[in-house]
């Protein structure tokens, strides 16, 4: 207790400057506008012993518009909880979350989410799943069809439009889930270990696909994972969390240019980042014991 997250860069321009020195590419991809603002968010659960369990302790972080932010941390550090709070599926005990300047006070189509488990509606076909959010908005059918087509193509499932979710592989299911969220054109896309249940080959393919989709859509993404390779492969910045209580230990820039490819895992930049994240997570673990 008491140890707070390392303070975030006090101003965006500081951060921007730092990046300018290393990778000029970055500037073109991220704007300065803050899309997600998490301000001293605390989440406590009552326990059977009577004392509250602190899942998140005064967590603050900012994610810029169009940025791909990755939260990495050990299991039980509250990273998924933080994402559920951002989605509005749960309320913080204390603190505030703003997305695109508006305070989050419940779930909305503006904050799309891809879940760890498979959450396609099994009674709907692939295209009907993608259409689901558009129907909620009461968008006219011809427009809906156009958007569904666009995202089917984006995730490479044009030939599976009429299939049932049950007939799809795990990777395909998550591709539909991504398309379903993006079809709604949300202000931010939240991803809760979406590839956690996939085998490592499929997982790598999905990471590449997600990066492609992200580069086309330029959405602000917050991606939660416990896989360090995945975090570096995908993220513009990696927020490293610690457990008990859940807090952000450090924010690291990933200064590896896009497009990122699979062989990057062997490069020195990648490996040194990986080493740093590993030691942060390791120190956090050994403090606990």
């Amino acid at each position, binding site marked *: 207790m008491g140890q707070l997250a390392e303070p975030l860069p006090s101003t965006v321009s500081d951060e921007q400057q730092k990046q300018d020195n290393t990778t000029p590419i970055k500037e073109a991809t991220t704007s300065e506008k803050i899309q997600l603002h998490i301000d001293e968010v605390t989440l406590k659960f009552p326990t059977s012993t009577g004392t509250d369990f602190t899942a998140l302790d005064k967590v603050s972080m900012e994610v810029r518009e169009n940025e791909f932010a990755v939260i990495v941390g050990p299991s039980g550090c509250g990273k998924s909880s933080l994402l559920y709070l951002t*989605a*509005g*599926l749960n309320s913080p005990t204390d603190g505030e979350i703003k997305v695109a300047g508006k305070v989050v006070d419940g*779930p*909305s*189509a503006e*904050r*799309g*989410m891809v*879940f760890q*488990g498979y*959450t396609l*509606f*099994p*009674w709907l076909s692939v295209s009907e799943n993608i259409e*689901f*959010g558009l129907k*909620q*908005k009461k968008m006219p059918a011809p427009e809906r069809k156009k958007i569904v087509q666009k995202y089917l193509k984006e995730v490479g499932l044009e030939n599976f439009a009429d299939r*049932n*979710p*049950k007939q799809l592989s795990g990777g395909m299911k998550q591709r539909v*889930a991504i398309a*379903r*969220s993006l079809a*709604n054109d949300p202000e931010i896309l*939240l991803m809760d270990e979406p590839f956690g249940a996939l085998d490592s080959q499929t997982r790598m393919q999905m990471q590449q696909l997600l990066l492609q989709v992200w580069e086309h859509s330029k959405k602000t993404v917050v991606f939660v994972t416990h896989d360090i390779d995945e975090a570096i492969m995908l993220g513009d910045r990696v927020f490293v969390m610690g457990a008990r209580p859940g807090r952000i230990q450090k924010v690291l820039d990933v200064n590896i240019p896009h497009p990122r490819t699979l062989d990057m895992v062997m490069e020195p930049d990648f490996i040194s980042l990986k080493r740093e994240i590993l030691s942060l997570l390791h120190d956090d673990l050994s403090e606990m014991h």
Partner: protein
Amino acid sequence: MSSKQVSFKQLTSPQEELPKKVVLGAGTLSWIVLLSSWFLLSASDLVPTMFLPSPMDVLSTGVRLAENGTLFEHMWASIQVVLIGFIVSSMLSIPLGMLMGSFKIVQAVLEPLVNFIRYLPVTSFVPLFILWIGIGIEQRVTVIFFGVFFQQLVMISDVSRGVSKDLLHAAYTLGTSRSKVVTQVIAPASLPGILDTLRVTIGWAWTYLVVAELVAATSGLGYISLKAMRGFQVDVIFLAIVIIGLLGLLTDQFFRVLRARLSAWAN
């Protein structure tokens, strides 16, 4: 047959699939055993025909009663009672059960009461129903309703409660409101389970039929059984039992097909 021998190991391994031929064969065998033991027992002198009619007797009684029309009259009376009771019960238990499974407050209000009532024996209420409702079809329908409704309510609320919360979360983040989540997610997700519940409970409705018709009825399969007992017409009792069984099987298959059609995604 020779190349596809089923081994002893296959037959005795838990959850091991068997060829369709074997499954069908085993099912047919048990029918053959049942019918032939009935046939043999009635043909022998072990049991007097007064207590056990032969299958042929039952069949010819069936033909005789079908020809003079009384069989269909009683069948129709029973079908009406079962279907009205079952449909009214289902129409109430499906929405109420879904509310009970979706909203903890509805569950908190209804569950203690329902769990008490559903263990009360239906038969003990028959005299009360006669006093309150009389001896018309309404009374018989009430017996069916009472026998089925509370069980359906509990089973359907369990089905709705079992809908994955992840699906609700996904719907919320796609812009579905809290009230629409019930109709757009919980209802379609519960459909296969609801149809399973209906399939099981229509069987119970048929079993309550005789209870409903044994007392204070003037028509129906239960009524002719009672009348036949007084006249020692065992063949008629057997006939009534067989027909109730067949009608039950028919409604069971109806719901099986309906489930396969309406919720193919869950198969």
